[in-house]
């Protein structure tokens, strides 16, 4: 019955519908498309770099990063680092998916009510996300390939295969994630059309966890396949162990961030003395998982960042005091600097995700916020509540992640029989402060959100 011309036809009409719906939608949707494409471009870029490096076998003479990419062992470390960068990108994409989500869910539920089949709605949603991801991945692929051809005249077949795989996989995964995220809308169209205001009840970011898992498996595979040729390296197993620690702490971080949000909400809701704390606490209790994805990425960055700072301290200590190094000192410092840059990039992406998430949470609630302001709730109270929503659950979680990072640093120091670099305890503090600043970037948006104009639309 389902002959292929019909399929092509319906796909084309879905595509047109998806395009029309996106074109006719408001600014929020365009933000989602733009930011999703940006996130997809970043993901593609990191994945492409990792794949191309992974296609190398044995020793090469790569004229970059002072020989860090020459040997399989260090190369696999770089690959893992690149893949780990995908984690904050996933967190960022997760926040992007929330932009205009209420509006989009209602629109797609409207399609269901108008007689679209669940599959059609899923396809349209998948196309919307997939096209944005395709845009990002296409741009990133084109530029990466151009760059690659300049530095590496004739890439091998494996590299080309990897590039093709990544370029296709990013939009496909984006489309699948888009379709999966809609399962409730598809299941009960009426519920979503009628629903007023945002509601929680999301799981602990299942898609995010799945994404992290994929990254982890890929990283382990990369290490396993590329570092076998380096049995002479002393700490050949170190990356694996580090990975294990980071993943364990990371998985704990997602759960911890949700759980602390819930617990903080419950405890504070009862004891809150001020209006701002009360509002923030009840919002956390109501939907503790909404920010878990970004917060989990924050925690991962905290662990990695703190741990890295510890390792860096110890290593540069070693590099500068030891006489008998196998490689020139710049070899080691470049490695450290590269890793540092990766951590900083990851942190920047995570902070963007946090800012986007806060802004979105404001945009979704703007009518309610306008009503509160109309009733005389001072804007400062609303602003404080907004910041507390980020600050409260993050505090215990960052503390624990910081401790984890310090433990990594201390462990490494003890391994090398060096003094423990306690200064790294400042890293979690800095992370926490930066997160509050990122959340604070949406305060100007609050001012615009509480306009009385918002009261005029039901």
């Amino acid at each position, binding site marked *: 019955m389902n002959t292929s011309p019909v399929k092509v036809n319906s796909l084309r009409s879905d595509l047109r519908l998806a395009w029309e719906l996106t074109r006719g939608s408001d600014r929020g949707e365009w933000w989602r498309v733009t930011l999703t494409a940006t996130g997809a471009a970043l993901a593609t870029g990191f994945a492409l770099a990792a794949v191309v490096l992974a296609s190398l076998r044995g020793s090469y003479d790569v004229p970059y990063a002072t020989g860090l990419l020459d040997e399989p062992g260090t190369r696999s470390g770089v690959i893992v680092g690149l893949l780990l960068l995908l984690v904050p990108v996933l967190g960022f994409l997760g926040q992007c998916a929330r932009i205009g989500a209420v509006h989009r869910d209602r629109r797609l539920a409207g399609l269901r009510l108008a007689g679209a089949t669940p599959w059609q709605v899923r396809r349209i949603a998948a196309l919307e996300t997939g096209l944005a991801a395709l845009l990002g991945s296409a741009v990133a692929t084109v530029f990466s390939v151009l760059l690659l051809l300049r530095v590496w005249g004739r890439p091998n077949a494996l590299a080309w295969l990897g590039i093709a795989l990544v370029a296709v996989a990013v939009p496909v995964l984006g489309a699948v994630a888009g379709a999966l995220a809609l399962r409730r809308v598809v299941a009960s169209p009426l519920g979503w059309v009628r629903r007023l205001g945002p509601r929680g009840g999301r799981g602990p970011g299942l898609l995010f966890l799945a994404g992290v898992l994929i990254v982890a498996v890929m990283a382990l595979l990369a290490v396993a396949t590329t570092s076998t040729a380096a049995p002479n390296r002393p700490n050949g197993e170190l990356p694996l162990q580090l990975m294990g620690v980071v993943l364990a702490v990371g998985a704990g971080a997602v759960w911890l961030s949700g759980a602390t949000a819930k617990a903080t909400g419950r405890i504070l809701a009862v004891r809150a003395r001020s209006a701002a704390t009360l509002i923030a606490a009840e919002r956390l209790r109501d939907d503790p998982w909404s920010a878990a994805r970004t917060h989990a990425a924050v925690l991962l960055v905290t662990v990695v960042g703190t741990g890295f700072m510890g390792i860096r301290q110890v290593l540069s200590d070693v590099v500068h005091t030891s006489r008998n190094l196998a490689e020139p000192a710049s070899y080691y410092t470049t490695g450290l600097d590269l890793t540092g840059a990766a951590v900083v990039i990851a942190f920047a992406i995570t902070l963007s995700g946090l800012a986007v998430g806060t802004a979105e949470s404001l945009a979704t609630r703007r009518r309610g916020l306008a009503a509160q302001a109309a009733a005389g709730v001072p804007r400062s109270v609303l602003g404080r509540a907004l910041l507390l929503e980020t600050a409260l659950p993050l505090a215990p979680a960052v503390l624990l992640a910081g401790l984890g990072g310090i433990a990594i640093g201390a462990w490494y120091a003890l391994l090398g029989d060096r003094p423990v670099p306690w200064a790294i305890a400042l890293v979690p503090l800095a992370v926490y402060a930066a997160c509050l600043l990122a959340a604070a970037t949406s305060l100007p948006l609050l001012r615009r959100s509480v306009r009385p104009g918002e009261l*005029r639309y039901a």
Partner: protein
Amino acid sequence: MSKPVPLLSASGLTKTHGRTPALRGASVGLHAGEILAVTGASGSGKSTLLHCLAGIVRPDEGSVTYDGRRLEELPEKRLSELRRTEFGVVFQFGQLIPELTALDNVALPLLLAGTDRAGARARAGEWLERFGVRGQQDLRPGEMSGGQAQRAALARALVTGPRVVFADEPTGALDSLSGEQVMTALVHAARESGTAVLLITHDAQVAAYADREVQLRDGVVAPLGVTA
């Protein structure tokens, strides 16, 4: 015949949203303890008039006087305080914070005014009792029926003992029986405490709860029932 000075009055208000004029010189007065209905077709400027009178929106022209003070001369901070302490607002829906329980929603204005949590909750409970929704005090707005949520909203609007309550289509989302309960509760509470009510509605049966009615037509107050 000299009338007492109105508690709240507007004269010559104009307000344009983008290119659409909402008010074109509307004047109206609300006396202390009076329940005044503002009626009119949709788009006649009712809500904008309420927003101007409550100090939520600043009119383009004209002035609003409350108790001898001209609202256009007050900074936003003072206006916000005025709305919090001397005014109460009830909208069609959305004025309750979805994440707070009914009790905490009603206690919120008291918390903002500096009352301690326990005291605020106790007084909020009394008001919920008064509006017959004490049994729902631990529910969130989304878990209550529309009528119960609106009665909780009334409690929130009245808990600080305001002198004016602004109600914008308070029964707009309710069936007629729930609407009747909400209106009866509002009118009784306002009469007992001497609170003036500015009631925006398009429904004559709701307007009939008021002492007086003004009709808005195309952004101005239409003369009522005056035969030419």
